[in-house]
């Protein structure tokens, strides 16, 4: 049996219009909430403390940068914070934060995430957006700057090294006499998780996959001997499959690590 149910012209126009009957709005809404929460927290936290947020079981040592146990990852590496301070940055923490901010903003996975969740461009597949013939994608300013991702990657790799250096501090404490001893607390585990997830996130990046072999025309050219780039590319390719997961885990871990150290220091009381 066939019945006409009306002309299509009256339907599906305007932002969010779609024939999809599933919960397509759930993912962009969750993304908006998660990213929004992190941005608000990170902004407030960055403006909250004038100096690096450090904590040590020995209170006398907690304020000394070279003898801390826990250093909030927002302030790692501490020497860069000091450098920002010495050249007169009003908020020296931004001498550090431009690196993770730039890396994450230009990250291929993050781009997908915020184009969908924040900008609604599109909010979900086969869902109408603010259609415009002036759409330029990433071909014009400011989005053409996404091409700088690999430069942020180089700095992010340095950041990974410094985060691991801070793990060395997170597993030791300094007593009143200045002696170092092994120490482990919940914060040590939290900071370890932050360093681990940051490492996995950075080394699963699409740019590093390209630079470590993906850009090659072939892996065995001329004599059939496998080049090292095939192995490096293969390894990063395996990690790259979980790049999105590592993005979220590292974002949560860095936020939670900062929150945890601030709770210990008493910033949030």
């Amino acid at each position: 049996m066939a019945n006409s149910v009306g002309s299509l012209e009256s339907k599906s126009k305007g932002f969010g219009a779609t024939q999809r009957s599933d919960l397509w709005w759930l993912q962009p809404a969750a993304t908006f909430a998660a990213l929004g929460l992190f941005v608000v927290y990170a902004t407030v936290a960055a403006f909250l403390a004038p100096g690096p947020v450090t904590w040590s079981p020995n209170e006398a040592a907690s304020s000394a940068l070279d003898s801390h146990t826990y250093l909030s990852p927002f302030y790692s590496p501490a020497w860069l914070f000091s450098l920002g301070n010495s050249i007169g940055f009003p908020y020296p923490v931004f001498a550090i934060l431009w690196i993770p901010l730039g890396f994450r903003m230009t990250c291929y996975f993050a781009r997908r995430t915020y184009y969908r969740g924040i900008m609604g461009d599109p909010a979900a597949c086969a869902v109408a957006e603010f259609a415009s013939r002036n759409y330029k994608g990433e071909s014009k300013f400011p989005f053409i700057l996404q091409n700088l991702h690999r430069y942020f990657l180089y700095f992010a790799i340095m950041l990974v090294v410094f985060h691991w250096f801070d793990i060395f501090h997170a597993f030791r404490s300094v007593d009143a006499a200045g002696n170092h001893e092994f120490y482990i607390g919940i914060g040590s585990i939290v900071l370890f998780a932050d360093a681990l997830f940051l490492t996995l996130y950075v080394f699963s990046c699409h740019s590093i996959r390209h630079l470590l072999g993906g850009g090659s025309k072939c892996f065995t050219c001329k004599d059939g001997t496998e080049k090292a780039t095939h192995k490096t590319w293969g390894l990063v390719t395996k990690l790259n499959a979980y790049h999105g997961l590592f993005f979220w885990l590292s974002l949560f871990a860095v936020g939670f690590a900062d929150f945890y150290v601030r709770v210990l220091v008493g910033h949030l009381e």
Partner: protein
Amino acid sequence: MAEATFRVFRGDKNGGEEVEYTVPVTEGMVVLDVIHHIQGYTDPDLACRWNCKAAKCGSCSAEVNGKPSLMCKTRLDHLPLDRPVTVHPLKAFPVIKDLATDVSWNFEVNKKIKPFTPKPDTDWVMYQPDVERAQEFRKCIECFLCQNVCHVLREHDKHDNFIGPRFLVRVASLEMHPLDNGNRLEYLKDEAGIALCNITKCCTEACPEEIHITDNSIIPLKERVVDEYYDPLMRLLRKFFGKK
């Protein structure tokens, strides 16, 4: 016997309407079976393109409940049948009649891509590690669901400036071919419009062959364009050490 209601688009390039059909549902049915039932018992003039009914010819692409899908691969037991199921033609291409769309634009785009270009004295020996990357792209059945779901074509109507995911996959398969000597980077940047892609991955989600279109073809191509046009350090390295 259980029944379900389907709202199928009937019309042409000048417009159309949804027509409601009630169809008996049996175990294992797919949406293409519903269309065939309508053709057989109610409206024999309902137009629909199909061929293999095995998700390999890429002909029966449509939008089922708003989702770009192959009708032959969309099982009814995966759809909520307590309310009407909509079946519409691909939105990114002009409708010829009912569910059949004119996808000839794709074939015109394909002609503009520099074909496989080996060196004149090529030694025709290839090794598996070199060809396996591009083998994934050979799975493409040209259903054009990726082209349809891509918002650059679907929403922004950039058919004159952007070749779409399917043809970025084809360019990637050529660029990654170990014996190809052609250079398509200028084409990618200036004519193919790769920068218009903002990597929202809808093409990957829509692909019935599960090709990792974004991660394995579009992003590697974007990185190659960055090598060539946006990375002064890479340019300097090429100058000193020669082309990679």
